């Protein structure tokens, strides 16, 4: 009975194995191509007018640029947002949020594309190592083995393995980087939102 269940489980498991890390996405975190306005913001939902304001209002656009930059510390951001909020109405505050959101979300997308390339690179390197191993076995099995060729192949394989492993060690940090941007955006959203007039 148990064996039957185990078999059934095994069969069912196969098609969904790729739910987490895949060739295009090496991280355990679920891939979310874009962030959501609604998971950061409880104020009025931005619309087309907000987007237009975020683009056309020079002060909003400049401030959004500044806030989105990582070198702007949370303390600096706090002051900048407070100064802006002293004269801005809800529509302009929402436009500022939209501007910051769009910038950080775009940066995050670029970063995620980079992670995908990183993942694909690792998969490619793993495949290359497999090919080298197979070639080494072939060389070793020959009637009169070419030891120089075997040594060269082995050295190349060692290098590949070293590069692969070093990159693999970086994976956790690499996969955390979009999360850092998400955290920053959330913090900025809360800051801007705190200046909205009560509903």
């Amino acid at each position: 009975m148990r064996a039957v269940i185990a078999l059934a489980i095994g069969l069912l498991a196969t098609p969904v194995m790729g739910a987490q890390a895949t060739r295009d996405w090496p991280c355990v975190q679920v891939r979310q191509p874009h962030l959501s306005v609604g998971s950061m913001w409880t104020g009025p939902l931005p619309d087309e007018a907000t987007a237009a304001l975020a683009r056309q209002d020079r002060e909003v656009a400049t401030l959004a640029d500044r806030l989105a930059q990582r070198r702007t510390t949370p303390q600096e951001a706090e002051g900048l947002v407070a100064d802006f909020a002293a004269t801005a109405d809800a529509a302009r505050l929402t436009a500022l949020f939209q501007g910051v959101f769009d910038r950080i979300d775009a940066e995050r997308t670029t970063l995620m594309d980079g992670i995908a390339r990183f993942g694909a690179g690792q998969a490619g390197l793993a495949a290359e190592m497999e090919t080298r191993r197979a070639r080494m076995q072939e060389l070793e099995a020959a009637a009169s083995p070419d030891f120089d060729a075997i040594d060269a192949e082995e050295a190349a394989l060692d290098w590949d393995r070293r590069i692969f492993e070093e990159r693999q060690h970086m994976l956790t940090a690499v996969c955390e980087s979009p999360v850092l941007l998400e955290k920053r955006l959330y913090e900025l959203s809360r800051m801007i939102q705190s200046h909205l007039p009560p509903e």
Partner: protein
Amino acid sequence: MLRRSLTAACALLLLGPGPALANRVFVTNEKGNDVTVLDSETLEVIGTYPVGARPRGITISPDGSELYVCVSDEDTVKVYDPESMEELHRLPSGPDPELFVLHPSGNPLYIANEDDNLVTVVDTETHQLLAEIPVGVEPEGMGVSPDGKVVVNTSETTNMAHFIDTDTHQIVANVLVDQRPRFAEFTADGTKLYVSAEIGGTVSVIDPATKEITDTIRFEIPGVLPEAIQPVGVRATKDGSTVFVALGPANRVAVVDGVTDEVVDYLLVGQRVWQMGFTPDESLLFTTNGNSNDVSVIDVARREVVKSIQVGEQPWGVVVAPDKQ
């Protein structure tokens, strides 16, 4: 002391079902490798205690005498005195314990071993391993029926809820749910089982008697992309009237009507909301927010977030101590 309890009694009389007795709230910090202890009345941090590498699942014995922590990267379950936070002993957990559930009587403990595709059963009194039950790929969510006769384990990759008979330790049924099931919660009367699916974005409502899915709860939040809605923790009030679902990176907790299984509200909490725990009187619900490193406190009756408390790095699990007997 007497004066304090008299004052408390007066306050209770004045406010009716108002402020509850203070209970300790325990939060595991997955990255901080420690447990933050909060006071449910003052909502302040009492202290932070190192527990070991990557603590995740956390629960407490029904009499409040033992606190259990899954220390995932040390392949063990550590048992603490909830008052002193001193380690009492360890339980054999099998590799990479992530989540577990205690039998309603307080013994045994059922532990999901993600890497080994097993559920480990451990006697909490003798500290002995009682059984290892092979389940689906990457077991994770654990729920127990209120009568203690059935343990439900969800397997992340197999997408199933496995019903395990606690007498025979055999799987008696498998229910296919949506992708990457994370958590299983029975209602207190045992008539419903809620299973969340992180990637599927749904919560399946299962009738434990027939093992049929009777309803599927879906979530839609204006301004939130569907892929950001990742249901994880689920908690139902004892009367079954309200069910709370933590929606991960949507940063929201869904409030579900437990009778109709319709979503009635979405509360904005911290970032990557993961697990939740009620106070014994169910006046408050605590949520762990992994990315914003805080715990949100929800007023259950008013369905409002009343406070955010900063805890350690990457809070994961939460449990509230029972009332002192």
